[in-house]
């Protein structure tokens, strides 16, 4: 019974695998403080601050959070969810922070970069001030945006992308406070009045008059402050950051047409710049760019959808990103293109894109999760279920389980369940019990129930009642393919319960059209190894063979081996994924060298103390 075995192994592996993951996470977590202990208090503080911030954001009653356990549409999520995606990334990074980053930070601090340390503390204080209530949100938002400028500047001078990521992460928390007023105030204060960028940005948010009025008002003021800021060169990173804020503002305002136009111009500007520190920001710009175009009528499923028009620019962007080794943009644009192709069901194009491109390994977790989801989808359509299953497992494991990216989590689980059913496995019941999935997965639960008992009528009923849902989820065609699996399971159930049954009864039980069909189907099931049985044509019955004891075969050993290997691979991977402080090994080397020197001295002393055994013994005692 090969299928049964695989079923068992599958459900077990689902249960088993998270456990070691958790333990390693714990391990590294517990390892973190010991490394951190050497560093100053401030780093501990800053971690606390971050933790607070993360929690605060988690509990923010944002749109996504409010969706509760309802069925969040996929379309709304990946794209619809700029919120969710940002939150996703944020959430991810947050996780990573607690586990991995502290040691590095400690190292940086112990590396003795004084100004940096101060900067960090200052930054975190800024963060903490966020949680303090009763500050005018507008003032605070402006303040936050400006703090982020310093971070961006530091990212450029130190060439450290983590600062940029931090800035991007903060977007989701300030998103609610972004208004045209806030943006225009920041822009006016940042740029000199004659700046082209400033007018470009102000045009986008309908505040083109802001500069003139600001100039007029500032004339009355003492312009000491202005003199201070204007000579400074404004970094393209800052431009891009402000543009992203403008994009988000337009998107939240549902000003799609304008946003699309603005994004197109923005991308034109971005293409002229070649700065590695801009990569992650540029990736975000492309994300919103594609998002805007997805919302313009005619909408995606139609072949003339507007999204098709941005394939050219996106492909160009992909080419440039690959040439510049810009992994962020490359990953983002690839997932965008895949989404684009799949939305108009241009599957062969999507497949070609995948086969001619390599997805960057260093891409962020969210992009990888998305890529795996799309890959799984394509492979499922192409009947490569094993591949699809692997990819979807990856996607579901990488997707955040919290409220934040629930749409993605649900969509990938739905697809995974269908693919598992198509592979002849019955998905683990625990999947359907998760609060995040329970309601939206209900049709799929019924579906797998009917497949698992081999109830053909029930299966067809469920498919017809939930057609709309399945079509919306894009799983309908896959589900239609399940019919044969239902029949196969049905036959298997029959063969398990009866040692001999007439074809006529099989036909009745499975709701097949004719006895002839039943005979062929059973014969095929025997050939495919679904059941162990033989047919007798003249008397018209199926006779099941005795099932041997599976523990007498090599199966258990093989399954055991497979699992041990999975555990070992997991261990290796987690070791590889650990980040270590930069110069820690030198310290160790130093102490090792000292120890060696001590030893040498000791040896010397022993030698000098001559062959006198008692003396030497005394020496040792003294030590």
């Amino acid at each position, binding site marked *: 019974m090969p299928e049964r075995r695989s079923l068992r192994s599958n459900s077990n592996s689902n249960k088993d695998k998270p456990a070691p993951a958790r333990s390693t996470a714990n391990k590294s977590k517990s390892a973190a403080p010991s490394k951190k202990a050497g560093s100053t208090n401030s780093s501990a503080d800053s971690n606390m601050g971050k933790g607070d911030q993360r929690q605060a954001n988690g509990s923010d009653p944002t749109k996504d959070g409010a969706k509760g356990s309802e069925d969040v549409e996929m379309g709304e999520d990946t794209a619809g969810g700029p919120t969710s995606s940002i939150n996703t990334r944020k959430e991810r990074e947050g996780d990573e922070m607690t586990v991995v980053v502290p040691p590095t930070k400690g190292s940086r601090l112990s590396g003795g970069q004084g100004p940096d340390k101060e900067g960090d503390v200052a930054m975190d204080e800024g963060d903490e001030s966020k949680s303090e209530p009763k500050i005018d949100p507008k003032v605070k938002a402006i303040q936050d945006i400006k703090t982020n400028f310093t971070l961006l500047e530091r990212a450029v001078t130190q060439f450290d992308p983590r600062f940029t990521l931090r800035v991007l992460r903060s977007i989701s928390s300030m998103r609610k406070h972004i208004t045209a007023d806030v943006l225009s105030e920041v822009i006016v204060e940042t740029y000199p009045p004659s700046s082209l960028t400033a007018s470009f940005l102000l045009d986008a948010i309908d505040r083109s008059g802001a500069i003139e009025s600001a100039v007029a008002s500032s004339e009355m003021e003492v312009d000491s402050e202005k003199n201070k800021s204007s000579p400074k060169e404004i970094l393209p990173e800052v431009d891009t950051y402000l543009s992203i804020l403008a994009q988000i503002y337009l998107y939240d305002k549902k000003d799609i047409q304008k946003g699309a136009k603005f994004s197109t111009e923005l991308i034109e500007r971005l293409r002229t710049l070649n700065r590695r520190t801009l990569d992650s920001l540029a990736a975000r710009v492309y994300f919103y760019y594609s998002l805007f175009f997805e919302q313009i009528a005619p909408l995606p499923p139609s072949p003339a959808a507007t999204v098709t028009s941005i394939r050219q620019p996106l492909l160009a962007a992909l080419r440039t990103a690959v040439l510049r080794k810009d992994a962020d943009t490359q990953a983002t644009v690839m997932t965008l293109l895949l989404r684009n192709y799949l939305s108009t069901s241009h599957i*062969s194009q999507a497949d070609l894109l995948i086969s001619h491109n390599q997805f960057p390994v260093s891409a962020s977790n969210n992009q990888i999760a998305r890529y795996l989801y799309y890959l799984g989808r394509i492979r499922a359509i*192409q009947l*490569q279920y094993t591949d699809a299953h692997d990819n979807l497992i990856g996607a579901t494991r990488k997707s955040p389980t919290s409220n934040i990216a629930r749409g993605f989590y649900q969509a990938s689980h739905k697809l995974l369940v269908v693919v598992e059913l198509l592979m002849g496995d019955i998905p683990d019941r625990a999947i359907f019990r998760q609060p995040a999935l329970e309601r939206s997965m209900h049709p799929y639960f019924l579906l797998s129930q009917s497949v698992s008992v081999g109830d053909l009528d029930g299966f067809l009923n469920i498919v017809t009642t939930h057609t709309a849902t399945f079509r919306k989820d894009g799983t309908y065609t896959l589900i239609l393919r399940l*019919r044969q699996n239902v029949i196969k399971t049905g036959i298997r159930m029959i063969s398990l319960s009866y040692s001999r049954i007439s074809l006529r009864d099989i036909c009745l039980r499975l709701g097949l059209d004719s006895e002839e069909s039943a005979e062929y189907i059973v014969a*095929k099931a*025997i*050939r495919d190894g679904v059941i162990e049985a033989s*047919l007798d044509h003249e008397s018209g019955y199926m006779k099941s063979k005795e099932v041997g004891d599976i523990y007498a075969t*090599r199966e258990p050993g093989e399954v055991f081996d497979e699992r*041990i290997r999975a555990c070992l691979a997991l261990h290796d991977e987690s070791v590889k994924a650990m980040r270590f402080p930069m110069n820690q090994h030198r310290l160790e080397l130093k102490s090792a060298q000292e120890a060696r020197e001590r030893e040498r001295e000791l040896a010397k002393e022993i030698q000098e103390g001559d062959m006198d055994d008692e003396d030497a013994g005394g020496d040792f005692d003294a030590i």
Partner: protein
Amino acid sequence: MSDLRSIVPELRNALDRNQLDAANNLLSRAKRSLLLENALIPTPSTPPQLISLAREVLEFGAIASIRQTDADTFTRYYQQLQPFYDLERHASTPGESAGNVDFSTSQRSKITGLYLLLLLSTGNSTNFHTVLEGLVEEASLNGKSVEDDPYIKYPVELERNLMEGSYDKVWRETKSERVPSEDFGLFSNVLVGTIRSEIADCFEKAYPSLPIFNAKNLLFLESEGAVIEFAQQRGWILRDGRIHFPVEPEQAARSEKDILVASSTVIENTIGYARELETIV
């Protein structure tokens, strides 16, 4: 353009009367003039009448190649037709103007159905489902189902029955009166051959023995003589009017060897774990 206008009806005639050589000649002439008009791929600047003429030429070419059982050429024609059909898809979506292109003569569903059938008969299920996915998507967009179209429905049902194992249904479908168009019938022989060998595979596993008379019906063969011939091809043993299927003899002998192989792998694995553990601890 004028000579194209004259060639197209000639082509239609030639195909109607099944004069494939004449059709081939006409086709190469037509394609040459299409090339001169730069109309092998539709562009926004191509005049609408030319688009529909070009499409017709390519469709005739596809049908001619199917009748000559030239799968490669047919696939090429199918690919060439895609841009034309994309235009048609655009036009069929509400709110888009057709741009004066005449789609009434389009044989899109027939060509697509033939292509699906070709994929099915060559066992290329990956592409089959990829094409089908697009069709389903499109149909549901227009509030229809793919099965509304007889040309598409035919291969789709065939595939479903094949996967399910209802070979008798496939057999009945391939009979001439069930086939939606005579061109589809060209695949019937291939399909029957496929299912026959599938059934034979199943027989070997499922039955210990089978009377020749029953085998004739189950294999959809005409006479018992044909059954005997078929059985000899597959290496089946005929005795007392029954077919005995060869049993795999090594069932019993295998277990002995199995244990030997298994023990060595177990030892190997265990040593492997020990080594790994050593590196970890």
